[in-house]
């Protein structure tokens, strides 16, 4: 046997991020650049876009074509939906949610933002902070994306001038503090030429901060930095009574994904809604026993006592119970072409639990361009409003800003089965 031990590969897991901006800001070029410089684009795809670039009369390969969409979109000349794209640096895997930037697509950005650890907000260096910059920032903040990066792009078109960058940064900070954004990073960039994306380039010598990819490599994923409370919504109960193995006749495994926090064998837990207390006997993935389970791990919990637990119940650490609520206040984004009707009953889905709900009170509608609060009788698609909701069944909730997993819900219209709303509990 060789004496040389293999060096364990570095794996910083996975980071999900969102790019906000319109085609004019160079969003597609930035994504193309990231994919191209990290070698996520293979030769046959590259040949295809090179052909298309030539057909459209361009000298260089147009990297924005890498994100070209569906036939249905090209026919209408618009981007209709969030697209997901993938690349890896060898140490970390990335999922990009590419959301269309137009005003009417608030619902797409909210969708893409819901799973993002980080948002990149693109600003055209020639244009500075625009209404859409404010809109994207407000939504990123509303959705509580942990990290915000402002990429001041097209620096090549302003001679890579530091004073342009400084002025836009100051403008941005002035309005960001008004809406409560505190943690934000700024990068000068030319996605077209590749400056400060993966490579530093040699035209932005005055900037000493990280490149975009360096920043992505070091950003913490969403659950890593808080002291979160343990939340385990039960998805499915495993009771293999009919098994040939008699040892399994009393087996009751509570299956789910740790929404937040962590749990260890022997820890005292409370079962909601029953309120019964017991201890964790084992944490399993198939036949493997784990001493602890952490946020985002899918596991099976075995408990000391026989307690009747079913899908929709929640296991939490004793003494760390969430709020048991039959009335909630929330920020709600309406996603459906059919307006919200405050007289109708909808279905609210929260973790693995459903409840009939009356979305009866609209406190105000938020204008996402001016941040003004307006009164409203009903909500139409892309509206964001503060609402009061009455529930038929209690939900086990935390504030969304504290816990995205137990602070979020969707609204389903039972007459169509469509998902019509997305809510963040206040």
């Amino acid at each position, binding site marked *: 046997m060789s004496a040389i031990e293999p060096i364990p590969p570095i794996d910083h897991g996975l980071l999900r991020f969102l790019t906000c901006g319109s085609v004019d800001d160079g969003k597609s070029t930035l994504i193309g650049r990231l994919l191209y410089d990290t070698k996520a684009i293979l030769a*046959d795809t590259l040949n295809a876009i090179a052909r298309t670039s030539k057909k459209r009369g361009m000298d260089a390969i147009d990297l924005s074509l890498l994100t070209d969409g569906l036939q249905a979109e090209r026919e209408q000349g618009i981007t209709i939906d969030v697209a997901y794209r993938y690349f890896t640096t060898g140490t970390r895997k990335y999922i990009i949610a590419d959301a269309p930037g137009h005003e009417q697509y608030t*619902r797409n950005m909210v969708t893409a933002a819901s799973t993002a650890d980080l948002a990149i907000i693109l600003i055209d260096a020639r244009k500075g902070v625009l209404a859409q910059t404010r809109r994207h920032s407000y939504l990123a903040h509303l959705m509580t994306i942990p990290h915000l990066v402002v990429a001041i792009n097209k620096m090549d078109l302003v001679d890579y001038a530091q004073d342009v960058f400084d002025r836009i940064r100051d403008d941005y900070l002035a309005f960001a503090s008004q809406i409560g954004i505190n943690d934000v990073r700024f990068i000068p960039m030319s996605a077209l030429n590749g400056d400060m994306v993966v490579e530093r380039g040699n035209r932005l010598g005055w900037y000493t901060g990280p490149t975009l990819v360096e920043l992505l490599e070091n950003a913490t994923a969403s659950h890593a930095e808080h002291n979160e409370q343990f939340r385990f919504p039960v998805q499915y109960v495993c009771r293999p009574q009919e098994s040939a193995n008699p040892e399994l006749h009393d087996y009751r495994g509570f299956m789910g994904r740790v929404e937040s926090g962590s749990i260890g064998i022997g820890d005292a837990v409370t079962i909601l809604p029953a309120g019964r207390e017991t201890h964790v006997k084992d944490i399993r993935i198939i036949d493997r026993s784990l001493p602890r389970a952490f946020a985002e791990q899918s596991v099976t919990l075995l408990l000391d006592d026989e307690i009747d637990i079913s899908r929709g119940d929640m296991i939490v650490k004793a003494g760390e119970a969430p709020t048991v609520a039959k009335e909630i206040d929330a920020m709600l984004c309406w996603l459906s072409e059919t307006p919200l009707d405050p007289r109708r009953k909808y279905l609210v889905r929260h973790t693995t639990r459903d409840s009939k709900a009356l979305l009866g009170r609209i406190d105000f509608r938020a204008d996402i361009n001016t941040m003004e609060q307006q009164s409203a009788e009903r909500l139409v698609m892309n509206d964001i409003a503060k609402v009061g909701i009455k529930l038929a069944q209690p939900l086990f909730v935390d504030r969304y800003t504290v816990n995205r997993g137990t602070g979020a819900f969707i609204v389903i219209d039972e007459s169509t089965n469509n998902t019509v709303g997305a809510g963040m509990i206040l």
Partner: protein
Amino acid sequence: MTTVTRHTLTHLDWLESEAIHIMREVAGQCSNPVLLFSGGKDSICMLRIAEKAFRPGRFPFPLMHIDTGHNYKEVIDFRDRRAAELGERLIVRSVEDSMRRGTVVLKSPDESRNKHQSVTLLEAIEEFGFDACIGGARRDEEKARAKERIFSFRDEFGQWDPKNQRPELWDLYNARAFKGENIRVFPISNWTEFDVWQYIEREKLELPSIYYAHTRPVVRKAGGLLPVTEVTPAKPGDTVEHMKVRFRTVGDITCTAPVESDADTIAKIIAETATTTITERGATRLDDQTSEASMEQRKKEGYF
């Protein structure tokens, strides 16, 4: 921003955990789901995920394969053996039965049966009353897939409407459907081809032998390799070569082509995948090259 903390899941652990969560949501929300299992590498990963999701219990769904009758014997043998090892029920429905019934009509005897799987699949969904089909499609395969939901709604004709998809937020999935409608669920949506090979290596998953380099008669055509088989015999004038090849994807013989390769272990396949210059479907799927939008078109017609 601080450094990455210690208990961050590795990317494979994260992807696996997400996929387990999705499968358990299907089990929790749907009354009669089915898992599509072809014996191909993606669906082999899906079986491993199902084991991690539901053992020591049985799978809360049967396995099903839509067989065109034009599959490699190695893959069909593997399919049957793997289902038996797991002790799970395997349903096979055949495009040839649909042809006999007259619901699939080929334009010519040598037309590929691949796209006609949609018809047989819809017939099987109706026969068994399945309300959800779990499949192994990935978003990195093709741009129509890049925009598809993890829980993807299909109407009673099995059609996907890219303009009218349900919003999908956080990890809150909506599998509700009326009778006759259907949800397609893709637990490994966020995996790439590379992730799949890494997972196969980590979990030491067995694959049908044709995924590894072997010698096979082929004909060079249009930049690719066409396998010479009973279903796809050499045509007059073709030069048949015996080459060392492997398959990157496995499906209907008439539309799945091998690539030249010496990789006879998973480690070698991973090394090749890391340095390949051709996309998985670009190299090997003859069915996607007919038109730029052909996957989008087939999905609208009820394809996986």
